[in-house]
């Protein structure tokens, strides 16, 4: 998934700004729905009403109702807080840990770097999804482990980028200049190397939020995340899987929201990437 970061930069600049604005707008709406779900819907995501089970999308229920008569739109709105918390939380953990590991590997002498690089390579030998599954096997299913599993699975990718950046930046003229002027190595690292490593990592993290949300939804689709009837997106999808023949809307709408979220983070990430690439030139 980290390959998204390698997306072609030349084409991005042609990306119309309206798309970026639409992406930002959608993400803001999502954040708002996570913080204040009551603004978007008056329905209770957990209230069952068998009399209204499996209703098709209509005026009262824009996304229809599920097998227990719960409003799917309300469930998707209330579900955004789980997905966003996991997406942002996991990405933040991965970013910080990856930065720490990667810059250490980039700064220490040959042996330490060799060991850390090999370790990163070994962990990267696994598909990220398998890695997340293994973490869940060790710490058990649940919301918190979902977050940790997704974070741990992507730390190596961040560490690798941080290491390469550190290697490049520590040879830069301004770092040398700072050292010549008597700045201590530790301070030079904190003041100059780390902040400059952070830029590319932040771009990567912007796109990473979307990937993390998909991965978390996938894990919870497999039953390894929150327990029903939590209105979590992956969980709603797995419930909808049993009613595909009669009620496609239960599975289709939450997935559409996940896709839109990931598309938005990708557009925003590519835009930031194009901007930072422009500044470097």
């Amino acid at each position, binding site marked *: 998934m980290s390959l998204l970061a390698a997306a072609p930069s030349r084409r991005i600049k042609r990306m119309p700004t309206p798309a970026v604005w639409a992406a930002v707008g959608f993400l803001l709406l999502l954040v708002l729905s996570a913080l204040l779900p009551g603004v978007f819907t008056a329905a209770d995501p957990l209230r069952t009403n068998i009399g209204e089970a499996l209703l098709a999308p209509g005026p009262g229920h824009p996304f229809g109702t599920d097998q227990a008569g719960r409003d799917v739109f309300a469930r998707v709105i209330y579900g955004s807080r789980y997905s966003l918390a996991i997406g942002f939380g996991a990405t933040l953990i991965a970013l910080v840990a990856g930065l720490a590991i990667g810059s250490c590997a980039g700064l220490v002498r040959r042996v330490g770097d060799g060991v850390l690089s090999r370790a990163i390579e070994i962990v990267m030998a696994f598909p990220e999804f398998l890695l997340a599954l293994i973490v869940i096997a060790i710490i058990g299913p649940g919301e918190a482990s979902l977050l940790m599993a997704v974070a741990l699975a992507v730390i190596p990718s961040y560490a690798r980028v941080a290491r390469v950046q550190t290697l490049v930046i520590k040879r830069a003229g301004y770092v040398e200049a700072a050292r010549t002027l008597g700045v201590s190595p530790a301070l030079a690292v904190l003041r100059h190397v780390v902040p400059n490593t952070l830029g590319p990592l932040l771009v990567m993290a912007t796109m990473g939020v979307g990937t993390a949300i998909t991965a978390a939804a996938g894990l919870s689709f497999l039953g390894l995340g929150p327990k029903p009837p939590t209105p979590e997106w992956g969980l709603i999808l797995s419930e909808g899987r049993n009613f595909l023949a009669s009620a496609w809307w239960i599975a289709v709408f939450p*997935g559409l929201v996940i896709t839109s979220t990931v598309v938005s983070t990708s557009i925003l990430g590519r835009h930031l990437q194009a901007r930072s690439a422009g500044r470097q030139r």
Partner: protein
Amino acid sequence: MTLHYGQVRGADRPGARLFGRLGGMVLVVWGAATVGFFALRLIPGDPVDALIGLGSVSAQVRDQIREDWGLADPLLVQYLGYLGRLVQGDLGTSYRRQQPVADVIGQQFPPTVQLMSLALVFALLLALGSALLGRGRRTAPLAGLLELVAVSSPNFWIGLVLISVFGFGLGWFPVVATAGFGALILPAVTLAIPVAGIISQVLRQGLDDAEALPFVDTVRARGASHTRLVLRHTLRHAAASSITLTGYMVGSLLGGSVLVETVFARPGLGRVALNAIVDRDVPVVLGIIVLAAAAFSMVNLFVDLVFERIDPRLATEQAYA
């Protein structure tokens, strides 16, 4: 992404370089087995519980089981024993199924390989189509949008949508997993779509880059049409750079198969992995870890070797890197 053992030192001696890379491969598999072995010891609970399933047994029987399975030995002895057996190709015995892990994996290997191979074919075709679509000035934004949606959609959701449209809606394909080829198509397409998006992005970038090379002017000056230029010349350049993605693709297909097999209720390695993790069947999980690491490093070795054949500049570049 790849190991670079001896690439500089042994550049003039291909044999030594291959040997160094094989060494790197062994190192990755050993590292994966080691990390996996100790990490899976962290699973809370008694492995004997996983062994006996839901039944309850006396403490005496528990001790006997522990003894029989070598779980009473010191951790280091267990580890060395595992490595020793691994070298001989023995992956241990499943806690749950009481049969060799190699058999458990072996039985479920064919359905997953079928699925992954067909998905790979679909992914390449879709990517090629989308990349060529992206060459037209008018159609380029469309290709970009398609790629973006393909890369961003969760594949289990794509599967659900395909089932409801082509399975339940139009009735073109069977909804449940059957033995026929028809039942393989929807899962393979599902697995292929996100991968196709990535390949297409890289292919298009490759075509863009290749078009800036001087030989393009020569070809054009000879009067070749644009189609001929792309199909005969620039596409080759672009394809070469896409080959480095093979390792990523195999990993992505393997990880994706867990979800796709669940969505379509198909048997396969993904399901085995998921069930082993839910049942805490440590030997099977470890077996899959080792298999994944071995597959990954083999694919990378293969890519490196093929790549040098296709693009001789690379071998020279590495020699002077």
